[in-house]
């Protein structure tokens, strides 16, 4: 296990170091793709290893899913990014020096996320997540426009406060563990904490969970802690937006879930469910309303990420086999779809030289392929068939309704409001007479096709292997 894990973490970090030395952006972009491909392969190799929990690292059904998703989207994003950044250099928005750091940081960020995902030590988890956050802060500000710096700064401040609160929560968990498991490492080892959860001090766990929820919830983008998210998505380079929405939010959610598992394993501790349900619903409904006022295409989809994170958190808050299954599925689908959407948005923004929705018109006339991609993405994310999110939303809504009918009205309300806004904007962009500049799209559309293809297949047919794996994971999350 250790070998695979260290590959998953090590390859990106090592490659990051190498990247800082390569001046040519073509070469570094290629190296980036190569390294991410290798990481993805290493991620896949985790499927074959025995699942076990070491002192520092753990591999179980839950995080294999996250790691593979992470490395896959990282890989495809690196492919997208290679062509995207090329275009940015041509238009002069980025200089080669920055690109060199860009690739290094991209890899380091991936490594940090993998670290967080495989960590069995709650301190290490924290370190990985925070490292990834800080790197993305820098990447968000990479264009150095006033708006980008503003966004990065906001992200930085809010992120740092989040970091601090999460750390305080981690201290509290340690204190709880220390009483039961003794001082030092064991009290920070997740698998031990979880196994002995019943022996921990319930009220300390409660307090810790509050801090962790606020701290990591900031990273997940739960309202009202979301403020950094839309701007960070909108002002950074599009590959970063894709990775932020597709991966970083997941990693933060993963951290939250791990702690939820500890707290939920203690019979006397608060039930994290209702808290997560409320937070999830607030995010979902709030983001849904916010969608109506968006004028920037990337901000639009950033709010949609908040919405979906809200839905996922709601699902995990509901708990139980079906809801957890749906939550995991939705999370995976959301990652794939949202990053695909950002790929398309990147293409669109480059083709139309703008991110303003009002300036993007008649895509279906001027760029039919892009229009189909965008429409497919929006429909996929809105939970329409034949895409995978339909299955997860189907499960979330039906199982919620079966358990408490009135509660089900809230997520459905949010989803419908959001769908109305998304469709409105989509139609605005697809139809009518094209206006403004119109370039040919040069960036690779392979990642887009791959993601949407996977999402489509997931909507039609979940291989029994994958389904069984999701089921075991949701069993663990129970």
């Amino acid at each position, binding site marked *: 296990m250790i070998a695979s894990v260290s590959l998953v973490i090590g390859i990106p970090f090592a490659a990051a170091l190498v990247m800082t030395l390569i001046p040519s952006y073509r070469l570094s972009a290629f190296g980036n793709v190569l390294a991410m491909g290798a990481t993805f392969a290493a991620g896949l190799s985790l499927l074959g290893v025995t699942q076990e929990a070491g002192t520092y690292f753990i591999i179980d059904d839950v995080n294999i899913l996250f790691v593979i998703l992470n490395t896959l989207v990282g890989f495809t994003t690196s492919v997208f990014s290679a062509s995207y950044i090329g275009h940015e250099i041509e238009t002069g928005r980025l200089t080669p020096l920055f690109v060199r750091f860009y690739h290094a940081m991209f890899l380091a960020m991936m490594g940090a996320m993998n670290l967080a995902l495989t960590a069995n030590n709650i301190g290490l988890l924290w370190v990985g997540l925070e490292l990834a956050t800080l790197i993305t802060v820098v990447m968000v500000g990479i264009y150095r426009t006033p708006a980008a710096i503003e966004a990065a*700064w906001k992200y930085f*401040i*809010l992120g740092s*406060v*989040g970091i601090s*609160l999460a750390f305080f929560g981690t201290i509290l968990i340690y204190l709880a563990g220390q009483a039961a498991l003794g001082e030092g490492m064991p009290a920070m080892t997740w698998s031990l904490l979880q196994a002995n959860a019943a022996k921990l001090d319930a009220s300390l766990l*409660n*307090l810790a969970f*509050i801090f962790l929820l*606020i701290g990591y919830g900031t990273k997940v983008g739960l309202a*009202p*802690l979301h*403020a*950094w998210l*839309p701007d960070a998505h909108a002002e950074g380079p599009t590959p970063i937006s894709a990775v932020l929405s597709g991966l970083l939010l997941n990693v933060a959610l993963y951290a939250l879930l791990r702690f939820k598992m500890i707290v939920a394993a203690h019979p006397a501790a*608060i039930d994290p469910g209702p808290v997560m349900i409320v937070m999830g619903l607030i995010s979902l409904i*709030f983001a849904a*309303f*916010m*969608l*109506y*006022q968006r004028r920037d295409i990337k901000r639009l989809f950033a709010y949609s990420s908040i919405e979906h994170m809200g839905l996922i958190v709601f699902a995990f808050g509901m708990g139980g086999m*079906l809801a957890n299954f749906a939550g995991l599925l939705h999370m995976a689908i959301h990652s794939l779809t949202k990053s695909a959407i950002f790929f398309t948005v990147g293409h669109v923004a480059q083709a139309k030289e703008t991110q303003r929705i009002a300036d993007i018109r008649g895509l*279906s006339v001027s760029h039919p392929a892009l229009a189909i991609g965008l429409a497919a993405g929006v429909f996929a994310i*809105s939970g*329409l*068939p*034949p895409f995978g999110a*339909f*299955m997860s*939303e*189907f*499960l979330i*809504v*039906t*199982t*919620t*309704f*079966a358990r408490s*009918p009135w509660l*089900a009205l809230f997520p*459905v309300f949010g*989803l*419908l409001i959001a*769908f*109305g806004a998304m*469709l*409105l904007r989509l*139609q605005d962009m*697809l*139809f*009518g*007479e094209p206006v403004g500049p119109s370039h040919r799209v040069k960036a690779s559309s392979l990642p887009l096709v791959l993601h949407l293809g996977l999402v489509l297949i997931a*909507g*039609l*047919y979940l291989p*029994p292997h994958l*389904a069984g794996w*999701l*089921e075991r994971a949701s069993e663990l999350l129970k």
Partner: protein
Amino acid sequence: MSPEMATPLLAAIIGAIAIYGLAALLAGAIGGRALALVYPTAIAGAALAAGGDLAALVGQSDAMLQLPMGLPATGLHLRLDGLSAFFGLIVNVGVLAAAIYGLGLDREHGLNPRVEPFFALFAAAMNLVLIAADAFSFLFSWELMSLASWALVVARHDDADNRHAGHVYLVMAAMGTTALLFVFGGLAGIAGNYSFAAMREAHPSVTVVALVLTGTIVGAGSKAGLVPLHAWLPLAHPAAPSHVSALMSGVMTKVAIYGMIRIVFDLLGAPSWWWSLPFLLLGAASAVMGLLYAVLDRDLKRMLAYSTVENVGIISVGLGLALAFKSSGLDAAAAVATSAALLHSLNHSWFKSLLFLGAGAVLHGTGRRDFDGLGGLIHRLPVTAALWLVGVMSIAALPPFNGFVSEWLLFQAVLAGPQFPYPILRFLSPAVGAMLALAAALAAACFVRAYGTVFLGRPRSPAAAVAREANRPQLAAMGLLAVLCLFGGLFSVFTIALIQPLLVQYAGMPMASAGAGPTFFSLVAISAARSTYDAPIIALFLIVSGTVTTMAVHRLAARRTRRSAAWDCGFPDASPATQYTASSFAQPLRRVYGTAMFGSSERVDMPEPGDLRPARLDVRFVDYVWQGLHAAPAGMVLSLSEWLNRLQFLSIRRYLMLMFSALIVLLLIAAVWF
């Protein structure tokens, strides 16, 4: 009665779906010349599927298939039973006609990559809904159906109205789907038994049943167009190309009806009397409201869409009565009501498709679909005019056409109402009957108005004066449907024979079989002594008396005929503008019904003598349903979003404050609670 495993018939349907799907895929992926393949392929698919459905109905076959797809724990269940086959027949005949018409469109207007692929997808999705036998695949294909038709609605995307229609449509469709999600959530229970077979075994509590019913009304009802959830329908149906409008209005609403029947009659178990209430009330309201909208509308295709609302109302009343009779143990009456609902579904799919295709011919011939720009087309489009007349007679429920058959059955069902053990139903059934009677009369007025303004009189615009007749495939498509309308009107015993197994299953007993009445073709409701209707005899009578009169008059009378200017009380005016328009035709009706229903008001601006400005008459309507259920909520969503949007522009300090407040609130909760 447990279904057999996969049979050739089910395979035929799946094959047809595959054909549709393949056509959509190829056309969508390749485009260009591949688009030309869509309609021929769809014709083949529709013929295959319709044949399969018919054979399944006649042979009473019941086949199922389970595939390891879809929801992992449940799998994909497909089942072709009588109900699926019956509605499959409706769908595929509609698709057949629309595809034949589409051939003509291709020939006339060239290929359209925004229409052809989605047409085939739409057809595939509708078929899939019908054979889906688990909640997931049902809703999957249901929503796919919405999505495909959305693409068709926005096919002519440069018109902002169409875009608006598409938006309203798909959002309403999504709302409907979520309502159905609730339905299946309730039926599946906590354990998540999503297959229909498992749902039939479950016995939900009264609360769940009430919620499921509500969800069905909202979900399937909005798709079908029940008032007050109909608002998307007059927007979306006319926006699509006409042969798609025909499918949406004539066929897709039937798929929604299928959904209602499947859920309420099949999955929900034995009915209670109160289940019928929403169907009766909303159905009656739809029947009358739909026509009042229609009769006041000034757009040909929108008028047709509104009339669909009416017909769906009639079907819903039929279903409501069926539930009421069934729960009261009056199986014979339930059979009459059920057959009324089913036959009206079938009949409406034929004549509404015919009317929409005809409207398409008018639209393509003249480029206009507003009543004020049409007129006199009976001279320019003689065949279309004749076929449309058949549609008009059918939809106005005039004998011997098919619309009357289902209307007649429905009145027979109403007449069994006094036997209800429940006072509310005893009160409701005559009220519903009165509403139906009113709707029938309004339908006649509405379609006389439409036919009169579009086809009769003199052209009101230059375009109408030089209109061209539809081409051969288009006429063939309309002709097919017109023949079916006549067939369904004359030989309803055959259509009844088709649905007998369904009646046994869902009403408890069959209708009187063919030959139970005075002649083989007599339609008998409940018993021959009670009510009979014999369309062939009446048709024979009509022909005989018509011929006798004509011959007598021609034998006895002067045969001279002279063409001359119109008399018009001595003041014939050359300008076609002096004709009665659709609006003027509707004026008496507006005065009688409009004030109460739409708050209609007139404002006359009469200039003083000597003033040269023209006099003006403005008529205003208020669409209360649109105001209350669409404009107002949309306004609220927008203003709320505007209010919340301030949160996007706060300073970092304030964002921190939000975060801090969230933390403090949680801490306070922890301090107080634990």
